[in-house]
């Protein structure tokens, strides 16, 4: 197979040495996340709560159901199944985070979750709020729903289930070594998405220049 041998056209991020930063346990302190840099790999143990766009709106309107400071926020609509009195999580991969962009800065300022987990990255306003509040945005592998479910050890509680339905409700999961999570936007204004995006633009020009339209 061709196309993998030309490192000059590959972004430098892939070849950077990985910094494995170990496991963060909730509640996570502000200085713990300020010590992280874009490109680091972390895991989270403790409490992780889900919130998609509808849940963001409800929590901003009515306040937090319990203290969210120091917890991890997961952009996720899980597949869950009732089992006895409790719930079983079947698959829980991340959803596209950009849908929450208009709500996230205020959410961060008010509730101070320290780690956001999602996929695809977020915009400049969230990036600024991460620096201001002291939080990081982490990328969890898109589609890895079975892996995520395996790291969820139990459902602690669920909020707004009746009103929002299963995928949109606020699920509070007890997690162990949830990850791997790549710190993709840090509390120092760096975004891997923005950097990779700029590199891709440059590479695209080079690739197209080599194969001029005939």
């Amino acid at each position, binding site marked *: 197979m061709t196309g*993998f041998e030309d490192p000059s056209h590959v972004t430098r991020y892939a070849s*950077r040495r990985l910094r494995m930063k170990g496991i963060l346990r909730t509640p996570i302190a502000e200085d713990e996340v300020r010590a992280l840099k874009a490109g680091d790999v972390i895991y989270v143990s403790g409490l992780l709560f889900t919130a998609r766009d509808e849940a963001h709106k409800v929590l901003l309107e009515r306040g937090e159901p319990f203290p969210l400071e120091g917890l991890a926020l997961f952009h996720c609509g899980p597949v869950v199944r009732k089992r006895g009195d409790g719930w079983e999580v*079947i698959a829980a991969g991340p959803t*596209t985070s950009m849908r929450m962009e208009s709500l996230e800065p205020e959410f961060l300022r008010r509730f101070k979750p320290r780690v956001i987990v999602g996929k695809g990255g977020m915009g400049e306003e969230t990036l600024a709020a991460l620096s201001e509040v002291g939080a990081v945005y982490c*990328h969890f592998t898109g589609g890895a729903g079975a892996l995520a479910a395996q790291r969820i050890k139990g459902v602690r509680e669920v909020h707004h289930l009746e009103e929002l339905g299963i995928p949109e409700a606020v699920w509070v999961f007890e997690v162990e070594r949830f990850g791997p999570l790549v710190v993709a936007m840090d509390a120092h204004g760096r975004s891997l*998405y923005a950097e*990779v995006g700029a590199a891709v633009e440059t590479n695209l020009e080079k690739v197209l220049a080599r194969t001029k339209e005939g």
Partner: protein
Amino acid sequence: MREGEDFLPITHHLLHVTEMKNELIEGLKEALRRAATVLPADVVRALEAARDREEGPARVQLEAILENVALAREKGVPICQDTGTQTFFVRVGTKFPYLDELREAIPEAVRRATEEVPLRPNTVHPFTRKNPGDNTGRFIPYITWELVPGDSAEIHLLPKGGGSENCCKLVLLTPAKGIPGVKRAVVEHIAACRGLPCPPTVVGVGIGGGADLSLKLGKLALLRPVGTRHPEPEVAALEEELAGMINALGVGPMGLGGKTTVLAVHIEYAHRHPASFPLGIVVQCWADRRAHVLISPKGEISVTGDA
């Protein structure tokens, strides 16, 4: 002729038909389960090769993907929470004896699989937003019927996730742009998609035909095992060249940067109208889920994960 003499064979026939329909439902349900939970070996091999050449965040993504694939297989749970739109490509022999049964079995198998695997209910009415909850609806499951000579049937299943489907594109090129225009349009589009379709992806490119046919060809191209080349050398060469160009972009796994943006590019083509040059770009996420079913004229059903 005594009364009832011809009644008996009819009962037998009906019984046989009912049994055949049930067997088809069960066989297709197993194929749906297999597609949702077991990633085809050719895709796993391509992902492993990608992991071996990557470093840093890109490698972390591929390791997580492969761990996820192994877990899903071992536990029999869906690989991804988006279990996709159930899509069937049926090549049926003109003398295949169970056409009615097959036609009825497909939606029923989808209903049962939704309940039993389980699959996420993914069919929403565009006007009322109502979801029937069983993965069926108007035109869904989506079935493409192709008549071929013979007396057996062959079915390809392609449960396609929403994230990558949102990255499909139709381009109506000016014929003068030709194949160089195809290269530019495909590479620019995949660059613009970044991490959205969950790369490393498999890209199906349909060239020619008409607007609808070019996209259909792109989807048909995905039915081939990953990395197999088109039999015509000219087409095969373009597949290799496009994969190389795209992988030089550095989008990488999940758009976090890296050498592997596509696992493969597959191309199919049709003759085009002199004034048109349609290009259908179909993007499939790393979870390139497929299954393959063969039904013999005797009613024997075989299900495999590989095409």
